[in-house]
């Protein structure tokens, strides 16, 4: 072992010379100082590895010098061994208290001295290694945090909150880490509805959050293209099933809101019970999960069936991740379903339930920290007009596209039973750049014409059933039944587009296999009651008339043709 730099501070020349010789003989470098002040200066200049310090020296003395050196060394470990002919135990103890690490009695024993120097050098070396490792860890940690922040920015752009700021939504998200295993997504549908999804991935932090990215992509992408809740949960399940490791999945509740028909469709998988709180009589209906979480089952075994519910104005849906139920107080008890239900039943007003849950939770938890991500969501039904404009779909379609085309698309019984052609039709239409700005309206037209053709035309459902909320639910059940029992029938969708880059004309023609109907009477009736928002029946037709340049029923009423000119003239 060479090159240990040793500072020797001793006012006695004889002692200093002797010690210096011993230390040099052992292969070390020596710096000498004759008093405390000199020792401090020499320390600054030479940065010795170890200091051998006489206790009693003129001036500030060894103990004070030791204190200064230790203070200047800061985080560095500079061992100080006191040289002493003191014999009193208290004096020796005082040496160590002033910052000395050890002492060495005169006369010096070279063997002991060498052993001490080596031992302290090893300690200093270890200390330096430790510090270097600590610094390396700190650098890595900084790096990791920067990476996480970048990842988080990307993550937030993908799994963004969509329209969670809508006036009909209130939510609380309290993540356990930078990344959240709970996901809240909300988006307006092209037809004016809204999709909301609350997901809770297995685990916490980055590993849990990473699955949220494809989920959000699918949720927002498919919603914007007009896909329905069942298609979306199925697609998310398929994706998660393919990408997540075994044992990882996403408990989720997805709700589709229809602001015109005042209904909601729910898919719940692996989540705690939610509640529907009716504004009327404050009835509280529990909503139970009927499916396995997303990502568990293969596509073939996955069940995308939903619960359809009437959802009148000011009715409220409450959902949460299990983090809220499992939040613990200082006694280790869990918040639990009962406490939640109690708050919902006994809040002064339904409008205060959300705040009351938050208050009850924070009072219950006290200063206790969460074990899990905690998410709370309230969704209220209100009139569509109060929600603001439906956002225009993603403007990522090509700048130039086909302008002169037509197609005829025939859907037989099997297709009608299981397939929703609207996203596909929308996709084709959206290839025309001039139509992209009116995608919401176009979706409404397609959606209305298609359901008329299918429900009234092919299935022969009586639209007057839809006059009351109860009837509406019956209508839906009947639709499902007839659809499953349908042996034949078809809908033919014909589309034609012509025009140039400035303007164009789109014709949509729906031809169904049904017997037709007395469309003349229906059109007249709905014209007589404009703006009657409480009537479900025939509601689509005045809506369509305002978007389309012309709308005509043809033949026996089983053919309807809509013409849409673009760019749209003024307010349409």
């Amino acid at each position, binding site marked *: 072992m060479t090159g240990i730099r040793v500072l020797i501070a001793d006012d*006695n020349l*004889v*002692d200093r*010379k*002797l010690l210096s*010789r011993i230390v040099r003989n052992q292969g070390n470098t020596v710096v000498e100082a004759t008093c405390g002040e000199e020792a401090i200066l020499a320390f600054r200049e030479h940065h010795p590895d170890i200091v051998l310090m006489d206790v009693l020296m003129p001036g500030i003395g060894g103990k004070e010098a030791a204190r200064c050196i230790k203070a200047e060394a800061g985080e560095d470990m500079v061992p100080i061994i006191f040289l002493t*002919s003191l014999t009193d135990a208290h004096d020796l103890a005082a040496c160590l208290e002033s910052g000395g690490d050890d002492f060495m009695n005169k006369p010096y024993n070279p063997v002991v001295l060498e052993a001490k120097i080596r031992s302290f050098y090893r300690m200093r070396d270890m200390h330096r290694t430790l510090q270097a490792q600590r610094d390396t860890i700190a650098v890595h940690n900084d790096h990791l945090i920067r990476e996480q922040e970048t990842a988080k920015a990307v993550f937030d752009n993908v799994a963004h909150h969509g329209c969670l700021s809508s006036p009909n939504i209130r939510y609380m998200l309290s993540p356990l880490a930078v990344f959240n295993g709970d996901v809240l997504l909300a988006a307006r549908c092209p037809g004016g509805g809204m999709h909301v999804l609350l997901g809770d991935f297995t685990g916490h932090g980055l590993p849990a959050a990473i699955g949220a990215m494809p989920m959000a992509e699918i949720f927002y992408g498919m919603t914007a293209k007009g896909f329905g809740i069942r298609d979306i949960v199925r697609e998310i399940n398929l994706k998660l099933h393919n990408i997540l490791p075994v044992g990882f999945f996403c408990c989720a509740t997805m709700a589709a809101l229809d602001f015109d028909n005042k209904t909601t469709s729910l898919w719940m998988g692996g989540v705690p019970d939610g509640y529907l709180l009716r504004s009327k009589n404050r009835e509280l209906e529990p909503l139970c999960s009927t499916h396995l979480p997303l990502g568990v089952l293969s596509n073939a075994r996955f069940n995308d069936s939903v619960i359809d519910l009437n959802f009148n104005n000011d009715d409220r849906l409450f959902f949460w991740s299990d983090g809220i139920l499992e939040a613990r107080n200082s006694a280790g008890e869990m918040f639990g379903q009962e406490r939640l239900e109690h708050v919902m039943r006994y809040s002064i007003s339904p409008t205060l339930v959300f705040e009351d849950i938050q208050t009850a939770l924070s009072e219950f938890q006290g200063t206790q920290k969460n074990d899990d991500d905690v998410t709370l969501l309230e969704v209220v039904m209100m009139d569509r007009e109060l929600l603001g404009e439906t956002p225009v779909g993603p403007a990522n379609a090509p700048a130039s596209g086909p302008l002169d085309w037509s197609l005829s698309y025939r859907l037989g019984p099997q297709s009608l039973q299981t397939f929703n052609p609207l996203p596909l039709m929308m996709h084709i239409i959206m290839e025309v750049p001039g139509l992209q700005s009116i995608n919401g309206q176009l979706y409404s037209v397609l959606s209305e014409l298609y359901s008329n053709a299918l429900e009234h035309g092919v299935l022969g459902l009586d639209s007057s059933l839809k006059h009351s909320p109860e009837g509406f639910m019956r209508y839906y059940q009947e639709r499902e039944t007839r659809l499953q029992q349908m042996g034949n029938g078809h809908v033919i969708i014909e589309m034609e587009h012509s025009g140039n880059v400035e303007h164009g004309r789109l014709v949509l023609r729906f031809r169904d296999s049904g017997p037709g109907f007395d469309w003349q009477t229906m059109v007249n009736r709905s014209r007589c009651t404009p703006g009657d928002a409480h009537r479900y029946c025939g509601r689509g037709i005045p809506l369509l008339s305002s978007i389309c340049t012309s709308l005509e029923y043809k033949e026996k009423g089983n053919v309807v043709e809509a013409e849409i000119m673009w760019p749209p003239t003024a307010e349409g």
Partner: protein
Amino acid sequence: MSSQEHFDNESLQTLQEIMEDEFNELIELFISDSGKRLPAMELAWETRNAVGLRMEAHSFKGSSANVCARELSRLNMELEDLLRDRTPDDSEWQELHNKINAIRAETGVVHDYFQQMLQA
């Protein structure tokens, strides 16, 4: 005179081995340093400077121990102990002077012995 009463001979041998060519220089340094100690002690005694006297004794104790002058170191330790944490009265000052004289005599012995060594 047996050097055994005054020196730790075994340690002195080791010291010689450690210092090698610098041994003589070290002994000369000790002789000149300890030569200055006695006048300093006398001055401290005359001015009744108990702290100063004790510091001298302490330092002399250390350096004589380092050159293995066992008896000289012991005498200095006794002087240091007599002055520990107290101010001596007149009769005690007399006693202290006896101790200084003893140290002077022992210093003479040590010097003589070292001189012999250096000339050998």
